[in-house]
C-alpha cells in the first residue's frame, strides 16, 4: 500500500449524482493521472456529506478545504492550482450565489459542517463505503468484535443498552433496551430482527444518509441485536424509492459475508446471522411496525391490532424486534464506549444525539447530528444558517407531516422527547421544515392533508373517511369558500380520528391540524374573510 500525501473526498449520493458528481470524479482521476500524481493523491468516494443544495462537493485533506458547486470544468483548475501548487482556489466561478464570491470555505467552521458530536454519522463522508478495510480501520465492526472477544453475554448487551437510555428514533421513542429484553424473553424457537428503513415521513432523509453513507454500521448493529435477542435472521425493509440505498446495502452485505462477518459461524465463533434486504413498494403506512411486518410477509401493508406486540407476535407470528435505522446506528458506539459515555450526551431522559434534517427557507439546508435537547433556534440559526435571503421567520414544521407547526415564540423549545411533549409536539423523525414570512400555512396544511388522504390505508373508517373530509374542508378554505365553523369541524374530525383510529397514521393527523389552526389562526381567518380570492385551479 502506498502512502498518500493528499486525500480528495467526493460524496456520492442521490443528490450529488444528479448534480454531476460522477463526471467530476471521472475528470478528477483523469487529471491526476495526466499529471502523474495518481499515486500520491487518492480520490475517495464517500457517502453523503449531509449538506444539500450545494452541488458537487470536494473536501481536500489534510488541508480541510471544502469546495462546493464544483462543475466538471473546474476540475482541471483545482488539480493544477491546489493539488499541484498547493494554492487554495478562490476563483471557481459558477453558481450565482453571492456568498463571499468564492466556493471554498474552511470545512470545520461553517454552517452545517461546523463541529457536530457525530455518533451515528461518524463515518459518513469520511470513508469509502465500498471498501470494507477502510470501514474497519475507522472502527467498523469493533463493537461486534468486542462482544465476541470478551464473551459479553446477550443479557449483558441488553443491560448496557437499557442503561444507556437509548430510545427509538423512528418517532415514538420507546426504550430500545426494553424492546430487546421483551423479545429475548418471549418464547419461540425462531426470532427475527427487522430494521425499519421505510423512511416515508415527508421532509426526512436521515435514514437514507446512513444507508448510503455507512451501511456496515447498520449490519453490525443488526448482528448485535440478533445476538442479544437470540435471532439468526434479519430483514432490512427499505422503501422502494431508495434505489441507491438498496444497491449499497446489498453490496455491503456481500462484502461482509465474504470476510465472514455475516452469515454462518461469524468470525468462527459459532454465531449465525443473515440479513436480507426487502424492497417496499410505496406505502407510507408501512413505516408503522405491524404494517411493515404484513408487507414483509407479502401482504397488503395494513397495521395489525395491538396488542399482541411484535416482540411476542411479529413476523410469521414469531417474536420480532423492529428498530429504526438511526436507533440501530447508535448501538455500536454504546457497546464500544459504554452506557455512561452515551449518557453524557443529550438530556437525562433523552440521552444521545439526534439526526435532524433542516429544510426549506434556510441558508444551508441539509442534515445535522446534534445532542438531544439542543434548542430549535440554535439548530435553525447556527447550523441551518438562519432564514434565507434576509426574510423573516414565520414557522417551523417539526416532525414531518405528522408533526406540528411551531411559531416564533416556541423557537426556544429544546429538541428532545420530553420538552417537545410539553408543547404537544413530537420529535418524530427529526424533520425541521422552515418557512419564511411569505409561506402560507393554509397551503402547507393542504399539502399535508392531501398526503394523508392519499396514504391512509383504508382499513379503519375514522382515518379513511376523516382524512378525506379534512382534505375537502381545507380545500374549501384554500379556495376562498371557507366558513369560520369549518375550522371547528376540522378540529373535531381530527380529534375523533385521534381517539378512534387504529394506528398512528390516523391518530397523529390532529397534530398538524391543531397546531396550524391554533398557532396561525389569522392565516386561516384571512383566507376565510377574503372570499373574493380568485379560485385556484386544481391540478390534482
Amino acid at each position: 500500500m502506498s502512502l498518500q500525501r493528499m486525500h480528495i473526498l467526493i460524496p456520492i449520493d442521490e443528490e450529488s449524482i444528479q448534480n454531476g458528481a460522477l463526471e467530476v470524479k471521472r475528470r478528477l482521476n483523469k487529471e491526476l493521472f495526466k499529471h502523474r500524481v495518481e499515486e500520491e493523491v487518492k480520490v475517495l468516494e464517500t457517502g453523503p456529506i449531509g449538506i444539500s443544495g450545494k452541488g458537487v462537493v470536494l473536501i481536500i485533506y489534510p488541508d480541510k478545504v471544502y469546495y462546493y458547486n464544483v462543475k466538471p470544468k473546474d476540475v482541471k483548475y483545482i488539480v493544477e492550482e491546489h493539488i499541484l501548487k498547493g494554492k487554495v482556489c478562490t476563483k471557481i466561478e459558477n453558481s450565482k450565489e453571492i456568498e463571499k464570491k468564492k466556493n471554498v470555505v474552511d470545512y470545520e467552521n461553517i454552517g452545517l459542517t461546523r463541529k457536530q458530536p457525530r455518533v451515528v454519522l461518524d463515518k459518513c463522508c469520511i470513508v469509502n463505503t465500498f471498501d470494507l478495510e477502510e470501514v474497519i480501520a475507522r472502527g467498523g465492526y469493533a463493537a461486534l468484535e468486542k462482544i465476541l472477544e470478551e464473551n459479553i453475554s446477550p443479557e449483558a448487551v441488553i443491560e448496557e443498552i437499557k442503561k444507556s437510555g437509548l430510545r427509538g428514533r423512528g418517532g415514538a421513542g420507546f426504550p430500545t433496551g426494553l424492546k430487546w429484553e421483551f423479545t429475548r424473553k418471549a418464547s419461540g424457537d425462531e426470532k427475527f430482527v427487522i430494521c425499519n428503513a421505510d423512511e416515508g415521513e415527508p421532509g426526512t432523509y436521515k435514514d437514507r444518509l446512513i444507508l448510503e453513507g455507512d451501511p456496515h454500521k447498520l449490519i453490525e448493529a443488526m448482528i448485535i441485536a440478533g445476538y442479544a435477542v437470540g435471532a439468526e435472521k434479519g430483514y432490512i425493509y427499505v422503501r422502494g424509492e431508495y434505489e441507491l440505498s438498496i444497491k449499497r446495502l446489498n453490496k455491503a452485505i456481500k462484502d461482509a459475508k465474504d470476510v465472514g462477518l455475516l452469515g454462518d459461524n461469524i468470525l468462527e465463533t459459532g454465531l449465525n446471522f443473515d440479513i436480507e434486504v426487502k424492497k417496499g413498494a410505496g406505502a407510507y403506512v408501512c413505516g408503522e411496525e405491524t404494517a411493515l411486518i404484513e408487507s414483509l410477509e407479502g401482504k397488503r401493508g395494513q397495521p395489525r391490532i395491538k396488542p399482541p406486540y411484535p416482540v411476542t407476535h411479529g413476523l410469521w407470528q414469531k417474536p420480532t424486534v423492529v428498530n429504526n435505522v438511526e436507533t440501530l446506528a447508535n448501538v455500536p458506539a454504546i457497546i464500544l464506549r459504554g452506557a455512561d459515555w452515551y449518557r453524557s450526551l443529550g438530556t437525562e431522559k433523552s440521552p444521545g444525539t439526534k439526526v435532524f434534517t433542516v429544510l426549506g427557507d434556510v441558508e444551508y439546508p441539509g442534515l445535522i447530528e446534534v445532542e438531544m435537547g439542543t434548542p430549535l433556534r440554535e439548530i435553525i440559526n447556527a447550523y441551518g444558517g438562519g432564514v434565507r435571503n434576509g426574510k423573516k421567520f414565520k414557522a417551523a414544521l417539526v416532525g414531518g407531516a405528522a408533526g406540528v407547526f411551531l411559531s416564533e415564540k416556541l423557537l426556544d423549545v429544546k429538541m428532545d422527547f420530553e420538552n417537545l411533549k410539553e408543547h404537544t409536539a413530537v420529535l418524530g423523525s427529526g424533520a425541521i421544515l422552515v418557512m419564511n414570512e411569505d409561506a402560507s400555512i393554509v397551503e402547507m396544511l393542504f399539502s399535508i392533508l392531501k398526503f394523508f388522504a392519499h396514504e391512509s390505508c383504508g382499513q379503519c373508517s375514522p382515518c379513511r373517511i376523516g382524512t378525506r373530509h379534512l382534505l375537502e374542508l381545507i380545500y374549501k378554505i384554500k379556495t376562498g369558500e371557507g366558513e369560520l365553523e369549518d375550522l371547528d369541524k376540522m378540529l373535531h374530525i381530527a380529534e375523533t380520528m385521534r381517539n378512534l383510529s387504529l394506528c398512528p397514521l390516523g391518530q397523529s393527523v390532529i397534530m398538524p391540524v391543531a397546531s396550524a389552526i391554533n398557532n396561525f389562526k389569522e392565516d386561516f381567518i384571512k383566507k376565510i374573510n377574503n372570499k373574493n380570492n380568485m379560485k385556484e385551479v386544481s391540478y390534482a
Partner: protein
Amino acid sequence: MKEILEKYERKSDNLLAILHELQDSKDEHYLSREDLKAVSKYLNLPLSMVHGVATFYSMYAFKPRGKYIIRVCQSPPCHLMGATTISKELMKILGIKFGETTKDKLFTLEMSSCLGVCGVAPAIMINNKVYGNLTPEKLKSIIEEKRREK
C-alpha cells in the same frame, strides 16, 4: 416471465419483489392481468389476493405507461419550494394531466410521496433518476433532453 419467476422461491413473502421485477422488466412499466395470474399460479396464492396486494402499493401500475415515468414529489418541503409551479409546467410542456401518458408513449406523469431528497426541493424522479432544484427552465431542458434520447 418464466425466468423471472423461477429466480424466486415459491414463498408468499417474495410477492412484492416478484411484482417489482416483472414490472421493471417491461418497456411499458406495468403489470398486466396475465402477469398477476402467472404470479398467483406460481406462488399458489388466490388471484384476488395478488390483485389486492398489488393495488395497495402505489409503485405498481396496471395500465401501460410511457418509457419515462415522471414522478413529481408532492410532499410539504417540495410544496413549499414550488412543486405546484413544477406540476403546472410539466402539464403544460407534456400536454397531459397527472395519471396520463403522452400520445407518443414517451412520458407518464405521476404524483409521488416524499422522494427523500428534500435538500434539493422541488424534485422529480424520472424512472430511477432524481432531478432537483427545479425551475421551469431547467425542467424544459430535462424534458427536451429526454425527447432527444428517446
